[in-house]
């Protein structure tokens, strides 16, 4: 009887709640599904914007770079044109050289300056970082203008030095390679300092003490401990600065206009100028510029990985 009762209970009582549960579960599931659809619908504007203004244009640019000037034939002529033309190759070379040079110089200055900054009291350090932050916002058109009124043809310093009779600035021309370098370095330094300064916080005083207790000199400390610790952030900063100046447009536009052959200025005049629009060629050069920047990032990551492996 006892067994039967159990059997009865199991057969008759349990299935009913199970059925109910299923029904409720289904209801809940349906509700969740409905809610999920609403939530997905809320994502739609974002997806539209990303496709319309980020992914779409990028794909269009890459696609457009494989068309002939008439926009109908599919070809790689545009790339061949670039690599056969002395003029465009020079633009790429100029951009690369200026970016490399300004990035290397700024990183070196920033490494030294950031170290010097750490030597002051916390209050002064904060103030110095604030100046760096402040000046890092001074870029583009206003910055170029500022250099023009100081060092341009009729600039204050130019006139002043010529009156004093200094021939040092006689050869100096702001609207040239040297001028560009000077301005690029100016906007890179504050950024580099802000990027490198935090990594000095990672070098503990105790490490220096331990190193000197073990008989190491200041030089050997920096050679074997300090610089290896800083290296990832130095390399990372370098590639950010490099990419930053490869893509810089406003500063160069304001300073040299079309008088100097730079990749970004060439692209601009090919896709959005009043004369001789060649959007396909511009697209191809845009692809090359993007590729260089991705290359810089890739290089950065590889270097970081190598450095970290060495550390381990």
């Amino acid at each position: 009887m006892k067994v039967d009762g159990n059997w009865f209970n199991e057969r008759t009582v349990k299935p009913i709640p199970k059925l109910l549960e299923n029904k409720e579960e289904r209801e809940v599931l349906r509700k969740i599904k409905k809610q999920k659809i609403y939530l997905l619908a809320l994502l739609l504007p974002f997806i539209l914007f990303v496709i319309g203004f980020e992914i779409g244009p990028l794909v269009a640019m890459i696609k457009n770079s494989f068309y002939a000037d008439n926009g109908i034939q599919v070809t790689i002529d545009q790339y061949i044109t670039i690599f056969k033309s002395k003029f465009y190759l020079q633009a790429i070379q100029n951009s690369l050289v200026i970016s490399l040079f300004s990035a290397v110089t700024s990183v070196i200055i920033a490494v030294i300056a950031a170290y010097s900054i750490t030597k002051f009291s916390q209050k002064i350090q904060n103030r110095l970082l604030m100046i760096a932050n402040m000046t890092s916002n001074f870029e583009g058109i206003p910055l170029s203008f500022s250099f023009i009124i100081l060092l341009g043809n009729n600039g204050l310093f130019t006139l002043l030095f010529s009156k004093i009779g200094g021939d040092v600035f006689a050869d100096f021309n702001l609207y040239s390679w040297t001028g560009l370098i000077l301005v690029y370095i100016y906007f890179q330094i504050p950024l580099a300092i802000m990027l490198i300064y935090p990594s000095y916080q990672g070098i503990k005083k105790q490490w220096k003490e331990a190193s000197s207790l073990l008989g190491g000199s200041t030089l050997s400390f920096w050679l074997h401990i300090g610089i290896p610790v800083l290296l990832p952030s130095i390399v990372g900063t370098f590639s950010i600065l490099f990419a930053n100046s490869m893509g810089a447009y406003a500063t160069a536009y304001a300073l040299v206009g079309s008088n100097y052959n730079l990749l970004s200025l060439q692209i601009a005049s090919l896709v959005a100028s009043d004369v001789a629009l060649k959007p396909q060629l511009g697209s191809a050069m845009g692809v090359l510029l993007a590729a260089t920047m991705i290359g810089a990032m890739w290089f950065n990551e590889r270097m970081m990985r190598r450095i970290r492996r060495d550390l381990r």
Partner: protein
Amino acid sequence: MKSSLTFHKVIVGLLVIYLLIPLVGTFLFSIAGKWDHTILPESYTMDWYIELFQDERFYDAFRRTLFLIVMSVGLSVVIMLPTIFIITVYFSKWEGLLQAAAMLPYGIPPIVGAVGLIKVYSDGPIQIAGTPWILIGAYFITILPFMYQGIRSSLRTINAVQLVDAAELLGATKFQSFRTVVFPNIISGILVSTLLSVALLFSEFAFANLLVGGRFETIQIYLADKLNSSGHLTSAIVITYYSMILLLTGIVLKLTFRNEKNPVVSNKKRILSFFKKQHCNKNTAIEGEK
């Protein structure tokens, strides 16, 4: 030891001089009357500022820039806030995708972005090249990385996922838990990235020049146009513009600084650490049952 400190003083001194000379020079130039062969101006005047503030073109350009900024930053907040919230809380498997889409503009300079935008919008179904609308879209993408990082990290610091779980357990709807629990807690974080975006767009020139140019004169285009005319007047523009940028970044710095030391925040953190503990307990209980 003392001599080495002198060395550092010289380095930092040189650096500060190098960084400040262009700014100070521009400022002095903007208030200088006659200045061509002396170290400091011979006479000072406010004429350039008076002239600037009577220039209708300046106001118009300023208004246009403001319009673009309000539209694109506003759109960004309205769109990105729910997007990031929904993905973090309900569709966390797509977080990588969202991050990739949001951080990509960081690696693409405007000059490259503009090439594609011109191509897409100069013909085809939507022809908005040369109008401010294309700029709003481009700016939405430009500030995407900043907005994403700001909102994402504020959501992370308040442990949004657990907060929403708790709110929904207590019977709140999804919208209620977002509006009354999550949103009030992340306002200050959003404010910082919003102000940063405003400052960034204020100094945006490449997109404005390439996509629209003189047809919709923004403050930067106006500035670029004035480069070759009166230096004094342009200095006044630069200084006015730069003071606004400084004001914005100053507020940002203040806000970030205050947030770190705010006792209210630390209270909030305490509550959250309690939540965290609860969460851990739940996990260990489940593991124990197994």
